[in-house]
């Protein structure tokens, strides 16, 4: 025991004493993300996609001949860890761009740290914070598919087009502030559109049984349900509803897991709304992602990596168009006027302006399982919203 403790102390001393090895020319970007922990399933696949993209880019010669070094730190969605990670990247590694791929609770500390250090912060896997919408904070950017408020507008629009406004609608959220905020907004919007809101169920993060919540929605007679919450809570509420014999339609946000889950659930009344194209469309870029994932022996399925791949494209474009990619200020300047072709992964190219660091246009698609063709079908093609 004594020797073990000494070896820990010795190890500590070496770790503290040895400065990290510096690769001379590489451009460093640092990512703090929920790679493990209870919600990692939503973030880790995107991060893996991003890593595969950067690896591929480096093999092809990097950006203007310079390699990109993607530094990953896990924060397990804990704010304090995220703050420490950000501080480490900014003060020790000297990154030119900070990435956040974690739960919303980590935003406040990373935003604060990035602002102090004057390094642009890009949100790559979780809901975009309000600061990236116009008028945007000059230092914050977001590539993620989620667009708070726009998501609910698109969802209710879709329900209106499918079922009219004479519809009883139920809502589902999870007991985390972001989800509750969005669903509260959606409920008000629905009332404004003349729909009848009959139930709003907010489920705790892990519920042993979702039936009590589902019973409320079912017995209130909801014909449609709009759910904007982490995937587990969306799908479990839906499955509990079906078990109760509910026959309505359920519209959920298309998280990374959406595609494999549509194939698993196989229910034509279960719709997903999202801003990323699903792999069922089999575009050439999707084949590229699949190949890269296969070659690397990836831990997560390729169809969950879209978000990370898009982030990779944007990072490449930003570094390539920066005058001096080694300077954070120059990178930020390049990011403030950027247009990236998403090759069909999104409904159009992703554009940032001085004012708008979310994107100038947000496109939505709705998918569901078609039992006749035994496959995923597009219910509603790209619907475009201007972001103002």
């Amino acid at each position, binding site marked *: 025991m*004594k020797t073990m*403790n000494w070896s820990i102390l010795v*190890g500590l001393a070496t770790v503290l004493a040895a400065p990290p090895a510096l690769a001379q020319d590489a451009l460093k970007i640092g990512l703090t993300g929920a790679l*493990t922990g209870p919600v990692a399933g939503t973030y880790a696949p995107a991060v893996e996609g991003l890593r595969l993209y950067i690896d591929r880019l480096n093999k092809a010669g990097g950006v203007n001949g310079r390699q990109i070094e993607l530094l990953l730190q*896990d924060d397990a969605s804990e*704010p304090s860890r995220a703050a420490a990670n950000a501080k480490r990247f900014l003060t020790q590694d000297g990154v030119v761009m900070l990435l956040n791929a974690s739960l*919303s*609770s980590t935003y*406040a500390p990373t935003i*604060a740290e990035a602002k102090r250090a004057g390094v642009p912060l890009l949100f790559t896997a979780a809901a975009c914070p309000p600061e990236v919408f116009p008028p945007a904070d000059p230092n914050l950017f977001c590539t993620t598919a989620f667009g708070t408020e726009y998501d609910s507008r698109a969802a209710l629009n879709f329900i209106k087009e499918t079922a009219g406004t004479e519809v009883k609608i139920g809502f589902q959220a999870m007991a985390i502030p972001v989800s509750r905020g969005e669903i509260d907004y959606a409920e008000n919007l629905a009332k404004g559109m003349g729909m009848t809101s009959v139930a709003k169920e907010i489920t705790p993060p892990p519920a042993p049984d979702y039936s009590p919540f589902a019973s409320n929605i079912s017995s209130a007679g909801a014909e449609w349900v709009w759910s904007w919450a982490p995937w587990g809570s969306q799908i479990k509420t839906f499955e509990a509803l079906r078990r109760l014999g509910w026959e309505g339609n359920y519209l959920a946000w298309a998280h990374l897991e959406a595609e494999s889950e549509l194939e698993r659930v196989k229910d034509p009344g279960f719709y997903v709304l999202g801003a990323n194209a699903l792999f069922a469309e089999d575009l050439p870029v999707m084949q590229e992602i699949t190949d890269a994932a296969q070659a690397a022996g990836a831990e997560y399925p390729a169809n969950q990596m879209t978000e990370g791949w898009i982030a990779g494209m944007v990072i490449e474009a930003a570094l390539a168009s920066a005058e001096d990619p080694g300077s954070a200020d120059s990178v930020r300047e390049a990011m403030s006027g950027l247009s990236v072709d998403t090759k069909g992964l999104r409904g159009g190219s992703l554009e940032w302006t001085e004012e708008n660091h979310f994107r100038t246009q947000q496109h939505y698609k709705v998918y569901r399982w078609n039992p006749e063709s035994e496959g995923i079908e597009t219910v509603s093609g790209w619907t475009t919203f201007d972001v103002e």
Partner: protein
Amino acid sequence: MSKPLPSASGHFRRSYADEFRLIETRLAKTSAAAFALVLLVFPFAVSPFYVDLATQVFLAAIGALALMLLTGIAGQISLGHAGLLAAGAFTTGILYKEFGAPFWVTLPSAALAGALLGVVFGLPSLRLRGLYLAVSTLALHFLVVYLGGEYETRRGFSTGILVDPPVVFGYEIYAPRVWYFVLLAAAALTLLICINLMRSRSGRAWRAIHSNETVAEALGIGIARYKLLAFVITSAITAMAGALFAYYRGFVSIEAFSLYLTIQYVAMIIIGGMGSLLGALLGALFVTLFPYVIEGAMAALPGADRLAGSVFAVNYAAFGIVMILFLVFEPQGLVGIWRRVRNYFLLWPFRQTALGERP
């Protein structure tokens, strides 16, 4: 009662005044001075990242010292430590957001809120013991976190409450090195308070209650009063640590105060060594630095890229193993190891195993 000196040190107290001195021997004086010097020079010798680490250690040390008073000294188990930290942080955050209250208002208010909660947390201790007490404090933890979450959602601070750096006499506490010294001072002050509490009537009363409640009562110690006092003092200090956390990190959010945080603090006092203030400090150092050491060790291993995704899981598992190893093989914690090493050198070239101590 002052701390006992090892009998073989050759130093004996010869007057009552000796009993009251904080630093007794010349060796202690020199080493304390050298240690203080190292602490003063440290932030100027290393990168800001290590300054941040050291600052985290100081912050943890304040909480660990407080918990040591309650659990290690007075023998009252609490699993509500993260709840208390959250209470302090939220008091600060709410006062700052709603009223723009400055540093010198929020900090005492946090302490006051902590003290009040201490009474609430402490009341069950009058009736309950051991596990039941632990569970009731755990329940209160959930209550505090729920209230904090409600505040965040209702007021629309869904990604946490941002708190600006405090301003003291027109000077903004903001740079890492400034924070280093602020928290070093706070930790040193807490240590001094704890040492003096231990040497005073209440410290003796707590130890008596810890050893045997019935005997303590027979000796004329007001059990209820001193138990509550332990809870109040611990909670006030812990809530202050929470307030300092809010200012240091620049934000407050419920997710930062999970049950795991409580477990980490409990681990600090176990790994450090129950019943010893030095143990609390060593434990805070160990538990705070442990994940970084594991990360460093894993980065040094070949194939680090592939492992990047599992660092945290490895950390978790390793932390569990270390805790188990300490509980099973070294119940006296780091302080036990430290004492053995010290005695080894003090007694050298002789070997001695004290009565009641494991060989």
